[in-house]
């Protein structure tokens, strides 16, 4: 980051700090208000439960009385206390007192001394009167709130991500966008590149004044230049009539040329970057696309469980396969439909394509809320998958339409950023909602969000875009031609497919089921899955930076090591589940998987161009990447089915470990295949030349 970019960064951070502070304070205030209500309402209920527990002990004392057994000689009382305390974690003290002396006691006596925190029941005994005393943990409500702290943290994180999106939507990247344009304009002007000066309507206040002053100064220069050029042009025919005139014209023209060259004098007024520019490349598409992805991601943490709860009908399908099918169908439809959707979306226009995807998605989510059987859900998930592919391709096309070679990488990075932001927010929020209102209502909310995305797109997306050069559609023979390249086939078989299989099998299928099996709710599954996206968001820029630095400083291509390393780490993540770590194991697995994928995803994509350089010249870049994406996404569809089979036959730990071990082996094989390096596409072209 250059100094001129960094100088105003503090204000951006201050605004972010203000949002964090205000959101945290608001959440804490709500928690504090709720705390007193919880104490007021739940404690009496806990005491009533303690009383019921007391009746169980009373029944035992009654039995002793019937068998004329002195209470102190009654066997199994301590065991009973232990088991009751275990089953009722809010009870922290149980005692039977005779003459105020405890003859049986378990737990922390101090809790019994707190006023209003205990119940007493008289017991009928053979001898002296006895009293059963049960105390409720005074910190029980506080413990409930501590358990909620993670959920609150998730809400804070999601609020921050959403506030960033809102800020961009409400203010078109905010006032900071105006400032960013100003910074770039000043930098361009200061370095004497007046053609690089731009302005924006979204600038406000002093930024607007300064941009206007700068633009006016540059426009004056442009006008002056134009007037001078026109004057020279007018007098140019007279140059032969008068030698002095010729000299004057030649001198003026030379000076004009020199000034135009030195200051890159513009020939047109300073352009407005508009709503869509390189710094905000998704522009009007950003908010609808985020909302649409968010609506789809809501169901990620509970979909397998929801599928498992639906009647299967007359089909005798193993239960684990049943719960994997909705994910696999979704992924399969996405994989198969994307190659043909690109040209279709270009033909009908990005706006209409996105609207169609949004409407289909909304309808599929709303209908999923009322699905009565697995087969219904499968059909609806297929429609949702198709809708997702349509919206995805339309949004991707929108980025391509609004970027050129110089800004495409940044545009696509923003595009990926949106996908990641939605995947951070969706699963934990979906989990929270599913726990609270149930999966059906969560699907209904997803439907409403997708409808909102469609309405936003309808309102904001430009109606017509300039026609672009049609992208060549991938044909079946392209697949054969591309796959005939053994190195490309090896890249797909050893890296692309295993990487996708393990991500989808673990994050979409096995982890939600494992978390449920461990006795935790969908919110916990959502939180754990969210870790994957968080690690990706944090890790991808770091990996890119490190790869570029290695390329710069050592003049080597470290892609192979990164891809192989990512696969090996993914494999170890799966093997980790062989250790008895319970939920921590699943958390560590997702964490490692996020790091592993962040390591390998970008170098792997970059390698496609390198291993298929010759085919790219013949078939075109889009055809090769089309084949790569399709095969890779078929890996997405295979993941849950493979995991379901392994789970059905071997159980959770073996399923995790088997997939992990396979990916580990693929990583090693990949390294062995490509260890001699990959000739970069550019080098190859040069060599051929």
């Amino acid at each position, binding site marked *: 980051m250059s100094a*001129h970019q960094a*100088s*105003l960064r503090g*204000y951006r951070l*201050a*605004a972010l700090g*203000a949002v964090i*502070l*205000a959101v945290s*304070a*608001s*959440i804490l205030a*709500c928690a504090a*208000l*709720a705390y007193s*209500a*919880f104490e007021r*309402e*739940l404690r009496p*209920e806990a005491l009533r*439960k303690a009383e*019921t527990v007391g*009746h169980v002990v009373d*029944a035992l004392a009654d039995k002793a009385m019937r068998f004329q057994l002195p209470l102190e000689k009654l066997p199994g009382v301590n065991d009973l206390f232990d088991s009751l305390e275990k089953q009722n974690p809010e009870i922290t003290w149980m005692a039977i007192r005779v003459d105020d002396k405890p003859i049986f006691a378990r737990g922390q006596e101090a809790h019994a001394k707190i006023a209003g925190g205990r119940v007493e029941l008289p017991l009928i005994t053979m001898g002296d009167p006895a009293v059963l005393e049960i105390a409720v943990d005074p910190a029980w409500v506080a413990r409930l709130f501590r358990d909620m702290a993670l959920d609150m943290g998730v*809400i804070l994180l*999601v609020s921050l991500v959403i*506030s960033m999106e*809102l800020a961009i939507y*409400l203010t078109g990247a905010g*006032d900071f966008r105006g*400032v960013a344009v*100003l910074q770039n304009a*000043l*930098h361009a*002007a*200061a*370095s*004497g590149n*007046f053609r690089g000066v731009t302005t924006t309507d979204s600038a*406000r*206040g*002093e930024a607007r004044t*300064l941009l206007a*002053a*700068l633009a006016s*100064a540059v426009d004056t*220069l442009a006008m*002056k230049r134009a007037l*001078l050029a026109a*004057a020279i042009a007018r*007098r140019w025919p007279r140059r032969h009539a008068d030698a002095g*005139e010729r000299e*004057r014209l030649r001198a003026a023209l030379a*000076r*004009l040329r020199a*000034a135009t060259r*030195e*200051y890159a004098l513009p020939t047109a007024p300073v352009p407005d970057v508009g709503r869509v520019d390189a710094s905000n490349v998704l522009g009007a598409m950003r908010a609808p696309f985020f909302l649409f992805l968010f609506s789809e991601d809501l169901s990620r943490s509970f979909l397998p469980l929801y599928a498992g709860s639906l009647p299967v009908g007359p089909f005798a399908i193993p239960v684990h396969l049943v719960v994997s099918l909705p994910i696999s169908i979704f992924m399969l439809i996405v994989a198969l439909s994307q190659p043909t959707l690109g040209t279709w979306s270009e033909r009908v226009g990005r706006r209409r394509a996105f609207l169609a995807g949004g409407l289909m998605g909304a309808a599929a989510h709303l209908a999923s809320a009322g699905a009565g059987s697995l087969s219904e859900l499968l059909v609806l998930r297929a429609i949702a998958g198709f809708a997702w592919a349509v919206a995805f391709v339309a949004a991707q096309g929108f980025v391509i339409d609004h970027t050129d070679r110089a800004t495409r990488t940044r545009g696509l990075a923003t595009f990926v950023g949106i996908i990641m932001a939605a995947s951070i927010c969706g699963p934990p929020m979906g989990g929270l909602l599913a*726990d*609270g209102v149930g999966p059906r209502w969560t699907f209904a909310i997803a439907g409403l969000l997708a409808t909102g995305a469609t309405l936003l797109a309808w309102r904001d997306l430009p109606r017509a875009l300039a026609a672009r050069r049609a992208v060549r559609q991938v044909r079946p023979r392209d697949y054969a031609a591309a796959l005939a390249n053994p190195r490309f086939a090896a890249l797909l078989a050893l890296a692309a497919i295993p990487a996708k299989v393990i991500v989808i099998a673990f994050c979409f299928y096995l982890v939600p089921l494992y978390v449920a099996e461990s006795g935790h709710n969908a919110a916990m599954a959502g939180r754990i899955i969210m870790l994957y996206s968080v690690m990706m968001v944090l890790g991808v820029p770091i990996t890119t930076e490190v790869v570029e630095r290695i390329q710069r400083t050592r003049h080597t291509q470290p892609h192979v090591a990164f891809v192989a390393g990512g696969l090996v780490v993914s494999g170890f993540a799966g093997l980790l589940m062989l250790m008895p770590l319970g939920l921590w194991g699943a958390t560590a697995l997702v964490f490692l998987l996020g790091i592993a994928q962040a390591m390998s995803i970008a170098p792997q994509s970059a390698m496609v161009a390198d291993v298929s350089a010759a085919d790219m010249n013949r078939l075109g870049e889009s055809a090769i990447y089309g084949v790569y994406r399709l095969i890779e996404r078929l890996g997405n569809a295979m993941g849950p089915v493979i995991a379901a089979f392994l789970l059905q036959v071997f159980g959770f730990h073996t399923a995790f470990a088997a997939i992990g071990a396979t990916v580990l082996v693929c990583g090693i094989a990949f390294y062995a295949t490509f260890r001699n390096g990959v000739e970069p596409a550019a080098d190859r072209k040069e060599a051929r030349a």
Partner: protein
Amino acid sequence: MLKETTRSQLWLSAWVIGFSVAMACLLLGFKHRAALDGLQRARLLLVATETREVVERNLTFGIAFTDIATLPDVLASTRNTEPLIAGIDVVDGGGKVIYSTDPPRRGHPMEMEWRDAMHHSAAGEPWHARDGADAVQAAPVRNAFGLTLGHAVVRYRLDALNKASAQFVRYLALYGLAVAAGGTLALFLMLRWVQARLERRLARLNAAFESGVAEPRPGSLALEAASARARVDDARHALEAAEQALDAAGGMR
């Protein structure tokens, strides 16, 4: 134009705080209901387990499942210990009521939703089901060989739970609105503060651009603004020099 900034900052503050407060309140509302529900269910499970133990004790004495003569009295006295309980049934494996605190229910099948829940429950595990404002908490009854013969089913109403939840939601909604309003105002004021500081900084930049003079701190924006002004002036002078060269005798005719 600054009014527009104010409006967008206000909207941003309202949306962000509104979303966080709404989600926090939603979570707290769910948690409150879940905690209350959990306490009630655990309490009633104790009752169901106690009933189950009475039946199983009789079975160990060789009494047939359908012939436990003392059970109706036990059920009636157990019901009276808990005000939450609407009734207690002991049903067979098919869901037919064998014993009940409500005599008209005897011999009839249990409600369909509850039978479904019973059939879908894991073998030998307690189960719970609800149907509108009615709910049941049940524990399976097993014979000496571990075979499930029936279920001890405690029926209860969800009115108290619903009422307590609704009351809590109202309380939270009211105070949540106040928190959201306060949070929105606080965030708005903080954003305004950041904005004001930024405006002051930009005003200095503006002055540097207008005057072309700035402290020579390398890389500073003020220096860039001053440099931009200097470059504009240089370019203007270069164009003027070209004009002068052209105008040396004839002017820009």
